């Protein structure tokens, strides 16, 4: 079955749902509309998954693309251009899957202003899906900023005690980054327009790819883009907005934040920073790899000493996303595909952890691990899912986290760019540390004698909670044992990306060498040439 405009439908169905929600009166109608919308969106996205041909070459454009004419023909080449390729397919699927799960998780958690909450949630989903699907840089930027506003309100209105501080910090921090990116986008658009698009400003990803940006320009453009994405990831030391935002956000917000929103950063690095600025990306890859590894270890150590379970999971994200960034900057197919699947894996397992911590919070209105202890006896099913998600998150082989981490580290080790054995060894210690802080959480919260009387009558997971956890757990297991169908989706795109980068890198380098002043070239004296030959 061929559904026309399927990609756009998947992006905008939640917006339609948001409008419908605004028309509803009763709380039930609001919730069910939101659930229905996200469920339908997920079903539609299955069409994307089925319709996507993993062997199709990315060189000819994305699949299932929807393309408008330029909005300002002949003056500025900005247009509506969305599509699916191996880099975004899994992330789109993750977003549409997380959608209904977040609605379900908010079912009783959100106790006021339902209409606003669910409509913002749906709007947020449109923004995120749009970010992943956009093939026009300007459109990407619009969606990128669109995600900011709903998230701001979700944290600021339905959050915890310090919600205003956290929300403002989240917005300003990410806005600083993205405004700098906007400057870079505008400059890049004009330069590329002059170079390859007959003088017309362009934001088309493919047109931009044709433009080999000169070295000097590449450097600062790269850093403006990279800064914006690094804040979003977040990469050490730009991460401090994250624990604040997570701890204050309602469960649904945290799940979206950790599950998909952060991936806009890593995805942006893959989609734009690497192919557009390949020379600089490679030159500074080690810097990013080192920051990523610091993040892995640092995030893990700080996570271990958090008294608040949610804060612990938040810092674990800093650690886990370090692996993804390391994979991205390794420039090997193993690590790159590992990074892509690890984005999904992190969304599943960290999303699950936030959901479970949220369930505890809903029952006892505390996130401090000291307030629990020994609750495995009263909530065996919840304990099962928690241990399961913890193991997935800690990278146990047979569950999803291992696949990503293994491929990333394997690929990074053999990388000629970042493959220093010492660095990879340090990164690999993250595997030990993940076990340390995650098992600590389980130990503190679930095991031991049930000392706090308030925990004795805690209800175990109900049907709704089971329904939202079961698909996540199932996917963790499926990706753990049979990741290959998922990996195949990104194979062609990864190859295309790495090849394009290498071609462009060589071209730019060649141009730079040729343009070097004659005097500089003459500096190579015959003696030096002989030395070189040796």
């Amino acid at each position, binding site marked *: 079955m061929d559904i026309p405009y399927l990609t756009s439908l998947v992006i905008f169905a939640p917006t339609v749902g948001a409008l419908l929600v605004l028309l509803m009166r009763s709380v039930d109608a609001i919730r069910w509309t939101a659930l229905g919308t996200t469920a339908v969106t997920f079903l539609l996205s299955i069409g994307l998954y089925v319709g996507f041909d993993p062997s199709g070459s990315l060189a000819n454009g994305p699949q299932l693309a929807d393309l408008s004419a330029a909005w300002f023909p002949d003056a500025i080449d900005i247009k509506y251009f969305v599509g699916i390729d191996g880099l975004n397919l899994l992330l789109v699927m993750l977003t549409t899957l997380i959608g209904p799960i977040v609605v379900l998780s908010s079912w009783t958690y959100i106790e006021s202003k339902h209409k606003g909450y669910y409509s913002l949630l749906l709007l947020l989903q449109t923004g995120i899906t749009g970010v992943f699907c956009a093939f026009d840089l300007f459109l990407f930027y619009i969606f990128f900023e669109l995600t900011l506003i709903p998230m701001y309100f979700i944290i600021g209105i339905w959050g915890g005690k310090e919600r205003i501080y956290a929300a403002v*910090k989240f917005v*300003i*921090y990410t806005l600083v980054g993205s405004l700098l990116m906007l400057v870079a986008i505008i400059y890049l658009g004009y330069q590329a327009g002059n170079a390859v698009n007959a003088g017309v400003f362009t934001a088309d990803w493919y047109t931009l790819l044709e433009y080999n940006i000169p070295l000097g320009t590449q450097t600062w453009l790269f850093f403006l883009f990279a800064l914006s994405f690094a804040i979003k990831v977040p990469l050490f*030391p730009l*991460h*401090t*907005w994250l624990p604040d935002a997570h701890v204050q956000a309602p469960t649904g917000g945290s799940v979206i934040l950790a599950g998909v929103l952060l991936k806009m950063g890593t995805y942006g690095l893959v989609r734009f920073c690497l192919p557009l600025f390949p020379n600089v990306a490679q030159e500074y890859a080690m810097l990013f790899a080192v920051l990523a590894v610091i993040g892995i270890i*640092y995030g893990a*150590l*700080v996570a*271990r*000493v*958090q008294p608040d379970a949610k804060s612990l999971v938040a810092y674990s994200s800093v650690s886990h996303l370090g692996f993804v960034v390391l994979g991205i900057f390794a420039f*090997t*197919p*193993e690590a790159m*595909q*590992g990074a892509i699947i690890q984005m999904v894996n992190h969304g599943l397992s960290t999303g699950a952890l936030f959901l479970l911590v949220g369930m505890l919070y809903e029952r006892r209105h505390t996130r401090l691990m000291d307030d629990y202890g*020994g609750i*495995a*006896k009263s909530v*065996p*099913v919840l304990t*099962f899912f928690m241990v399961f998600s913890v*193991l997935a998150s800690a990278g*146990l*082989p*047979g569950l999803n986290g291992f*696949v990503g981490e*293994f*491929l990333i*580290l*394997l*690929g990074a*080790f*053999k990388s000629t760019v970042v*493959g220093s*054995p010492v660095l*990879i*060894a340090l990164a*690999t*210690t993250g*595997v*030990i540390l993940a*076990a*340390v802080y995650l*098992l600590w959480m389980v*130990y503190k919260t*679930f*095991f*031991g*004698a049930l000392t706090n009387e308030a925990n004795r009558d805690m209800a175990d997971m109900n049907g709704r909670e089971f329904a939202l956890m079961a698909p996540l757990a199932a996917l963790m297991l499926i990706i753990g*044992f*049979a*990741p*290959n169908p998922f*990996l*195949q989706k990104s*194979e062609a795109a*990864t190859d295309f990306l790495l090849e394009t980068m290498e071609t462009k890198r060589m071209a730019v380098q060649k141009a730079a060498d040729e343009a070097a002043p004659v005097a500089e070239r003459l500096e190579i004296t015959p003696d030096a040439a002989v030395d070189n030959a040796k």
Partner: protein
Amino acid sequence: MDVSLLVRLILLLPLVGALVNGLAPLFLPSLRQSEGLIGTLGTAVVAIPFALTLYLFMTYGGDPVVVDFYTWMAAGDLSLDFAYRVDELSLIMTLIVTGVGGVIHLYSVGYMHGDDGFWRFFAYLNLFIFAMLNLVLANNLPVLFLGWEGVGLCSYLLIGFWYTDLSNSAAANKAFIVNRIGDFAFLMAMFLLFSELGSLDFDVLLNEGVSALSASTINWAVLLLFIGATGKSAQIPLFVWLPDAMAGPTPVSALIHAATMVTSGLYLLARLSPLVLNAPVIMAVIAIVGALTAIMAATIAIAQYDIKKVLAYSTVSQLGYMFMAAGVGAFFVAIFHVLTHAFFKACLFLGSGSVIHSMEHVEHELEHEHGEDMSDFDPQDMRTMGNLGRFMPSTSATYLIATFAISGIPLLAGFFSKDEILFKAFEYGFNGHPYAWFVWGVGIITALLTAFYMTRSYVLTFRGSPRWPKPDVVHPHESPTTMTAPLWILAFFSVVAGFIGLPAVIADGKWNLIHHYLGAPYGGPVAEPELAAHVPLALEWGLIALGSLIAIGGVAWAWRSYSAHGVAYDDRLQARLGSLYDWWQGKYYWDEAYDRTVVRPLLEGSRQGLWPFDDYVVDGAVNGVARLAQGASGVLRRLQTGVVQNYALAIVLGVVLVIGLMLFG
């Protein structure tokens, strides 16, 4: 029957058992009490694979069979399949795992009777068998690693099985984390090998790998894998988790922490033996670490009162013997000792379980029927036992047989395998590897200590006079048949299993069946070094005599001393040995040292260093910038006059600036 189908059944049946036993009762609490159903299913899914493996073993044609299920992951150069390998080595290991595993499942039906977590226990145990089978049947390193970490997970779940006691969960965490340190090295080894070879399949590693890899790569890879092995197989410096692991139910100690999982490191080295042989320096490291671990653990075992702790340190010590064997190139002997050890150590552990079980009844009876205050009573403490042989004849007899077997009393299983290890060390030294002499010497001393501490544990437990309160009124009972039958099965094999490895003095090694089965010279998968110099026959007989004398001497010494003096003999030892004995009793303070040098600095550093750093420095900088911006905007705000003309002027200026930049920029 088709090999592929058989392998599928062998692997998947335990998994099915784990899923059914685990998930059905989890979601349907009414099923949790169905012990009969759960126990039968749990045991059957291990017993049937045992029968199938036996069939495979009987019909095995001599050529390895690789069964390829499907591709696990493929990316770049990596193409990784769920592929399993049936050959002599994996068959032997599968027989041990499913055979000993089946017997212990049966035993657990009795041992775990009445426990709330009966269903969980069998689910974990089944899952363990599944993971262990992945480990021993894998045809590439990552699938082996899947099993490797899988058994670690089950070990974690089972050590912390009685989770309401937080110390059990702490022991579980410790086991998992220490194992993860080893796994870290295992991962690094895989990354290294993959970056050099582009494959992690055993076929590539053991054929092209041996010739294509540089000496330093092989050294690093073998060293890293060995570090991995020191985690799983409890060697210095990562053995510290195993004694604590005794917090788990006793069948777990027998199956996982004695017979199977902890021998994985040896299996790994035997599987990669062609590679290991090319790292002679690391082999010396392996042998020396094994020797030091063996003697260290044996000395600790002498000074313990907890019967399971004695057995735990004994296991560490025996694993040390196996590493000595691997380190002198005698990989098949290491596997031989894995096999015999599986029988006698499982027998000892299950025996101790039977003892603990009945001591718990004594405790219960004293507390509830006689009103004794039993809060200080420890049913695992040998100081409260004594003369149990009178009440528990089967347990006592089988424990004694296994004690003789591990001590190396002639013609019992441990005699053959341990003597073979010592002989191989001697022979390797004889062939110009001086470190092997050291290993041999340490092995001889440890053999004496082994005989001593094992006999001590037997005498203190089963002989002498009873030491629990009111022994005239309350006395223990023999365990039910589901528990004693497995003991007799294991005791039987502790007697006869050694005959598959008769020493070279008999018919020139013709009857060393396990050598002929596993050894590369006979077409098996386990490589061995070529040795030019042969130990003279007379000297070899002499070594056997020495080994026998040491075993008998050690047993006799402990038997006489503890029969005569009972527990008080420990005080004599302490008086005679002084602070050395304190070191033994204090387990050489490894835990304390790790706590002080690693755990605390990391924790306190994170708590008092990194976290405040994150809050005040990293985040402080962010907020500082924000405050700066706020201050600056206070100044800039004055520009916002609200007068439209001013804005228009600013806009015009801006446009001019932009145009100027575009023209001249």
